[in-house]
């Protein structure tokens, strides 16, 4: 098994952390995993993304050109990764930040209004967790509970009180995506 | 200057490129003042700038002059190389405090000691902006940076270097002053100093440097406006503004 995931968005959207939580969950369930940020002069603002590779063997390239799975938290990321996605891949799109439909027909674009859902939960910042939750619908190797455990184990202590809301975000994201999948003609 | 009621506009010596500096970073102010002086002195077309390694590494994108980009700290040596073969050109370096006062200490002291007819614009922002806010030789005692996480401990991490004071001990220095960029008045004084520094050069009166107290809102973790207050309240007491060396010949200059 090997699964490559790219999570992309603006600098402040918690892109890197979302990837890390995923990586923790993968590690804690005994898988090999790599997490790698895009770094460079852009670091100081602008877009950010990270690539997570999960596998049950030694991982080769930590970078992928055409991921089978990606999250686009904003429009530039949607543009970029819709194009890059592997055929038949799944793209979780933050519907709150994009104003267009998917162009490619050979991929699954799952639209989730992450910002709105996060705001409903009461913490705008959890938008990233909503997206991650949604992504799990396309990543059966990781369960929601794995992510919850990972959050519990690795969230800095000063943020521990936010755990319940994080869980909720994951679940709401998952649930929403589930519904979207149902719409997808399989 | 086409509109008769124009009071202030972007200097001509600037290119159209927006800078890559963080919002509110006074690197931008320093750039603008240099550009204004180049305009006033009408030397843009015979000026060669030397960009440092530091946040100002892309300075060459912003001035409408020839430009080269030096290795970290070596701008004064590169500038020396240029000026020695083109003595009638105006050559300036633009350097940060990591660049000039840490890795480039040997080069700046010797360019100054040799009395090279160069102008140095020295941006003292008390940290290494470009690499993410590490301690600089000019970091204030007790100031937290990513490499002095508990605040600069002078016992183990050394004392701030007062560059203007130090370089002023050298006979090759014609003009050496410290100014600040934290408010309109000081910005005006800074510009005058930059003008004097370039005048020193074009008259062949020796090495000239203007040290400018500058902000780094991003790495200081402050808003731009609070950063200016920090300069006023903390930097100036540690780095007193003033004229550290103005040779007699330079005192005669009227501009």
């Amino acid at each position, binding site marked *: 098994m090997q699964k490559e995931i790219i999570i992309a968005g603006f600098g402040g959207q918690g892109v890197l952390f979302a990837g*890390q939580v995923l990586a*923790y969950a993968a*590690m804690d369930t005994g898988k090999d995993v790599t997490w790698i940020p895009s*770094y460079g002069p852009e670091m100081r603002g602008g877009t950010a993304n990270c690539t997570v590779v999960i596998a049950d063997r030694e991982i*080769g390239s930590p970078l992928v050109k055409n991921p089978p799975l990606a999250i686009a938290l904003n429009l530039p990321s949607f543009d970029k990764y819709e194009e890059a996605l592997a055929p038949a891949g799944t793209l979780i799109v933050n519907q709150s930040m994009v104003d267009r439909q998917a162009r490619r027909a050979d991929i699954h674009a799952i639209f989730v209004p992450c910002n709105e859902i996060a705001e409903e939960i009461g913490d705008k910042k959890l938008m990233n967790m909503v997206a991650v939750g949604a992504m799990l619908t396309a990543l059966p190797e990781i369960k929601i509970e794995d992510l919850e455990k990972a959050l519990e184990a690795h969230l800095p202590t000063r943020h521990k009180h936010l755990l319940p809301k994080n869980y909720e975000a994951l679940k709401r994201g998952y649930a929403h995506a589930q519904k979207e999948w149902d719409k997808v003609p399989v | 200057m086409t509109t008769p009621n124009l009071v202030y506009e972007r200097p001509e010596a600037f290119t159209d490129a927006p800078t890559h500096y963080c919002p509110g970073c006074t690197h931008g102010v320093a750039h603008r003042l240099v550009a204004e002086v180049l305009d006033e002195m009408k030397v843009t077309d015979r000026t060669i700038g030397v960009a440092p390694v530091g946040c100002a590494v892309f300075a060459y994108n912003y001035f409408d002059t020839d430009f080269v980009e030096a290795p970290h700290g070596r701008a004064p040596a590169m500038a020396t190389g240029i000026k020695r073969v083109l003595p009638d050109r105006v050559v300036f370096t633009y350097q940060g405090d990591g660049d000039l006062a840490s890795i480039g200490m040997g080069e700046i002291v010797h360019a100054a000691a040799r009395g090279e007819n160069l102008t140095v614009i020295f941006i003292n922002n008390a940290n290494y902006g470009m690499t993410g806010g590490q301690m600089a030789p000019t970091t204030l005692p007790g100031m937290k940076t990513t*490499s002095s996480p508990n605040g600069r401990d002078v016992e183990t991490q050394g004392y701030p270097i007062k560059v203007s004071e130090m370089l002023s001990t050298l006979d090759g220095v014609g003009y050496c002053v410290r100014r600040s960029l934290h408010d309109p008045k000081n910005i005006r004084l800074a510009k005058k100093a930059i003008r004097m520094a370039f005048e020193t050069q074009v008259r062949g009166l020796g090495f000239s440097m203007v040290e400018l107290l500058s902000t780094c809102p991003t790495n200081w973790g402050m808003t731009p406006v609070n950063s200016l207050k920090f300069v006023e309240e903390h930097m100036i007491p540690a780095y007193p503004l003033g004229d550290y060396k103005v040779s007699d010949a330079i005192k005669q200059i009227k501009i």
Partner: protein
Amino acid sequence: MPKELWKGNEAIAEAAVRAGLEAYFGYPITPQTEILEYLSRRLPELGRAFVQAESELGAINMVYGAACTGVRVMSSSSSPGVSLMMEGLSYIAGTEVPAVLVNVMRGGPGLGNIAPAQGDYYQAVRGGGHGDYPRIVLAPASVQEAIDLMVLSFDLAEKYRMITMMILDGSVGQMMEPAEMPAMQEIRRKDFKWATNGAMNRERRILSSIYINPPDEEITNLRLLSRWKEVQNNEVRYKEYFLDDAEIIVVGFGTAGRVALSAVREARAQGIKVGLFRPITVSPFPFEALDQLTGQARAFLVTEMNTGQMLDDVQLAVRGRVPVEFYGRTGGVVPFPDEILNEIQRINTAPIAADSDPRNAWLMRMTAPHSSPLPEGEGAKR
């Protein structure tokens, strides 16, 4: 110890601490500054020495000084900073004191950029400093390997009184992977018979790299070389993948090597008999292992993130017996597996000749308008 998710640079720093690092001297430079930043907190906490030096020149000479006392000491930097250390490294080598250096390589030459690259291979293994001197160079491809090799670096440096350098690139430095940290080693200052730590109750000692009389210097050179032969005999390390029946052998170190692994797997899935040879010690280079593999190979494909540096060493091992081909990405560009897969497929099907310089064909492919992985028409542009 259980596995933790470690970021490469921080893992390196912590591994060094656990290996008994007593002093770090360095200067910030992307993409390795986290090593310095981590240690700026960690070492003082443990009462050990941390100095942010005035420059890399200062740093390497502080390392040199501390190394003379026999403690475990290191610096880290990235390409331009490492270039500034060349004189110091040559002195350290000539003085035969153990020192450890990490180079998280970036795109070059010159200021270049901060993206992952492997352009400093020559500098590291052929010696960018003046004079003849051997040095051990380790090239990790993962965070765990970086940790393990970091610890090994100190052991090897001490054992052979030799510079041990770890070269990696920013992608390993910035990557997070699950990894196991070694236990914290207690610091016991070894009483090396050469260390200049104060002549209390013993004859005084001198450490220097000066041998003003050429025959003495020659003896030193030969002593260093003899010791190097020992290193070559004992310390060669590499990793093999799918080599049993491989007819095409890909050779790559560090990140290029692990990217190649993905390509090799894919090629295997397509039925191509290909394997991967990943040197871990690039100096001593695994000449013998490659020499032996030449027997079974139909062709080698060297892949690097530079314009062909380790390539020389592979060619020295293969000695023209079978073709050696090259595929590189440079200047901070990291190859994707499909590019290497293309190369494997090409070699698998197209007839290839053993040319003396495989860079030529590669350069043609890179700059040709159609086959190039570069953006349209860019190959020819200034």
